[in-house]
């Protein structure tokens, strides 16, 4: 192997996951080890208990190191959180005569220049399309025109909140090679080229947050994070039935259902009770109602965002659900109802030799992170200086 192993680290709200990958001779990628540890000290994708997040992260890293028999020194760090947003930006330059590679490079850097509110930092600049004299979706090199434009989607977040996650990694004496928005990583692993061309919405149902990325007209047209995740469902259940969080979590996993069924009205479920309390049951119907309302609302929020941006009717390929929340019963049925589009659960797919126990929806982001890192590394080798400029392209179709 000529290249160092690629390590993607995802510090999620409920799990810390480490994916170790190695490049193969044919240019493909193979996942060689996974570290997966429970995480406490995170809420809604943000650090609330530094010490405890550190020890959870360490556990996951040690697990991966043992399995892969390597020592991890540098990682690609996945990031989410409700503070992450995306805005479209168009850069324009005047050109004379035939458009050259240099012109294209210049317009790209212009398009990346965007004034963000104080304290915000750019995570990704994703190239959408070029335009020559108002004609969009063209390959401009060699064309003749007066103005050249480039559309970028700028993904940005609040620096101070992201710093805390980075500090956790530094505490482990690790270098952060890149910070990647986890939603974009999930896209990398779970979507096919056909889906991207048709227009597709990916929703990553995480524990603390729900990330989404929308492809329309063959390009990433919107991305964002809703600060509501599986923990909210659990919290709603705990509140309604007055039980503890872990018990609510158990109830959700075993009986949770995104759709209300008539049969639920008569089915009773036992709930754990404290010492000396009488045994108690709750109605399945009530549980279904709680989960349904929360999930419907979350999907509805994403739908509203896309509608506001006029993207909803451009997503023809349907909705792909990924992340641990995709295990929720009937969640695809609910998404179909809310979005009026076909919906399926998706796991990581764009990696060779992925064993069945890795091809699960909750690993989409981590595997995507490794894929992303692999491409970063390839580009670094190919064109050592200024590799950053191509970052955006990797999410495109080409």
């Amino acid at each position, binding site marked *: 192997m000529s290249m160092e192993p690629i390590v993607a680290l995802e510090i999620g709200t409920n799990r810390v996951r480490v994916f170790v990958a190695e490049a193969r001779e044919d240019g493909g990628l193979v996942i060689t080890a996974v570290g997966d540890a429970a995480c406490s000290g995170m*809420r*809604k994708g943000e650090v*609330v208990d530094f010490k405890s997040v550190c020890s959870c992260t360490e556990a996951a890293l040690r697990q991966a190191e043992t399995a892969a028999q390597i020592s991890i020194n540098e990682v690609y760090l996945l990031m989410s959180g*409700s503070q992450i947003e995306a805005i479209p930006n168009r850069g324009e330059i005047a050109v004379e005569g035939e458009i050259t590679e240099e012109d294209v490079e210049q317009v790209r850097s212009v398009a990346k220049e965007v004034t963000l509110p104080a304290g915000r930092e750019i995570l990704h600049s994703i190239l959408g399309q070029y335009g020559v004299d108002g004609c969009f979706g063209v390959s401009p090199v060699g064309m003749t025109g007066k103005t050249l434009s480039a559309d970028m989607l700028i993904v940005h977040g609040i620096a101070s909140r992201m710093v805390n996650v980075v500090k956790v990694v530094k505490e482990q004496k690790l270098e952060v090679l890149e910070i990647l928005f986890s939603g974009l990583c999930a896209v990398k692993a779970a979507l096919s080229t056909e889906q991207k061309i048709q227009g597709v919405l990916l929703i990553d149902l995480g524990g603390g947050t729900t990330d989404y990325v929308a492809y329309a007209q063959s390009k990433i047209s919107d991305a964002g994070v*809703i*600060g*509501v995740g599986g*923990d*909210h469902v*659990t*919290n*709603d259940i*705990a*509140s*309604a*039935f*007055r039980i503890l*969080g872990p018990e609510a979590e158990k109830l959700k996993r075993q009986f949770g259902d995104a*759709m*209300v*069924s*008539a*049969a639920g*009205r*008569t089915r009773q479920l036992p709930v754990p009770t404290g010492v000396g309390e009488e045994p108690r049951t*709750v*109605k399945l*119907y*009530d549980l279904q*109602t*709680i989960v*349904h*309302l*929360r999930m*419907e*609302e979350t999907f*509805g*929020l994403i*739908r*509203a965002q896309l*509608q506001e941006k006029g993207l909803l009717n451009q997503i023809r390929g349907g909705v792909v659900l990924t992340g641990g929340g995709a295990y929720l019963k009937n969640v695809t*049925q609910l998404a*179909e*109802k*809310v979005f*009026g589009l076909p919906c399926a659960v998706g796991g990581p797919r764009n990696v060779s030799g992925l064993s069945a126990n890795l091809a699960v929806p909750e690993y989409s982001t981590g595997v995507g992170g490794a894929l992303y890192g692999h491409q970063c590394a390839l580009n670094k080798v190919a064109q050592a200086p200024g590799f950053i400029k191509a970052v955006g392209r990797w999410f495109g179709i080409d």
Partner: protein
Amino acid sequence: MAGNMGSSMEVIREARCRILVVGVGGGACSVLSHALADWPNPPTVAAVNTDAGALAASGVDLKVPIGRTIAQGLGAGGDAELGRLAANEDLDALRMLVSDHDLLILVASLGGGTATGAAPILAGLAREAGLLVLAYVTTPFDFEGSRRQEQAQEGLAELKQNADAVICLPNQRLYSMLSPGTPLVEAFAFVDRMMTAGIRGLWTLLARDNMLNLDFSDLQSLVSNSGNECVFGYGEGSGPDKVTQALDDLLEGPMLEKGQIIANSGAMILSITGGPDLSLAELEMIRQRFHKAARPGAHTAIGAAVLEDWKGRVALTVLAAEHWMPSTAPSSARQTLSSALFGHPEGAGQSTPAAGKRGKQGIMELDDNRGRFQDMAPTTYKGEDLDIPTYIRRGIRLPT
């Protein structure tokens, strides 16, 4: 989020629930007899009455006589107290009737003794058994006398406490639809037709594989936020202008007070029944007209059913909740919270056992229910704190 019941037409998956239709009292039983006459594959329909003779003559298969000792099979003689006692005499039979069903559509012509006295009791029993209870009732014409009217209003108030929602069709509202020379028999036949249409409209949407289906959860969502009161409207049309006719009939007619009720309502369910010739353009026309008539932001769920024998005809059935508690208004978060805790704000005299029991079960500690997100900056959207459970912000009382 506003799209949860969908302002646009949504293709909703089939929802099957076991529906039971019960008529209480003479008036309702005769409505159901008429309804059953040309009803293909009807749901379970039962008649509950104190009058053994009327019961025997009824075309309903499942007959439940009540108060055989107290009323001796002779009816309640317009006395609601007698109707109540009769129901209490046969509680077990009524419990048996409602068991193993999910939705009870209770039909009653309030004002009569059996209907007024027994209907609230049946509603209470059904709700205890876990059914969603929709009461579909009429109140008397003014010419039927003030005593009957008063009794009907008392029964209505009691029913509102025991049923999940009451759909009331005041006969007097229909009065203006009839010409002054209409014979009495025809006036009552007209009421029967309206009731029949409503029951069947609702049933059609919930029970069949329709082009556009409504879910049980849509109905539940409307009903549980309705403040226990829904308004029913019906319009139909035939021939080339069938849709315009039906829309005019519905929106200009007195049942919805010339569309005023649609304009006031926070949420509604619209059911369209048509023949195989019903076109997309026609559906769109209905949707647009409703969109215009409704207040901005109103939640509308639309279902459509195509029946073979409805060629050249269309019928529109509307269930609207005027007192729908909006869930998105940020200022109402506290209000709906308190109603979630203590039941309905206007439900003051909770004397009936069912209502009392529910009120108590809903009580929780008076924190703001942010639970594990207590100490965190709230996730807000348009002023709403998303960390608070959705069901609380929607004002839904749990456990049910």
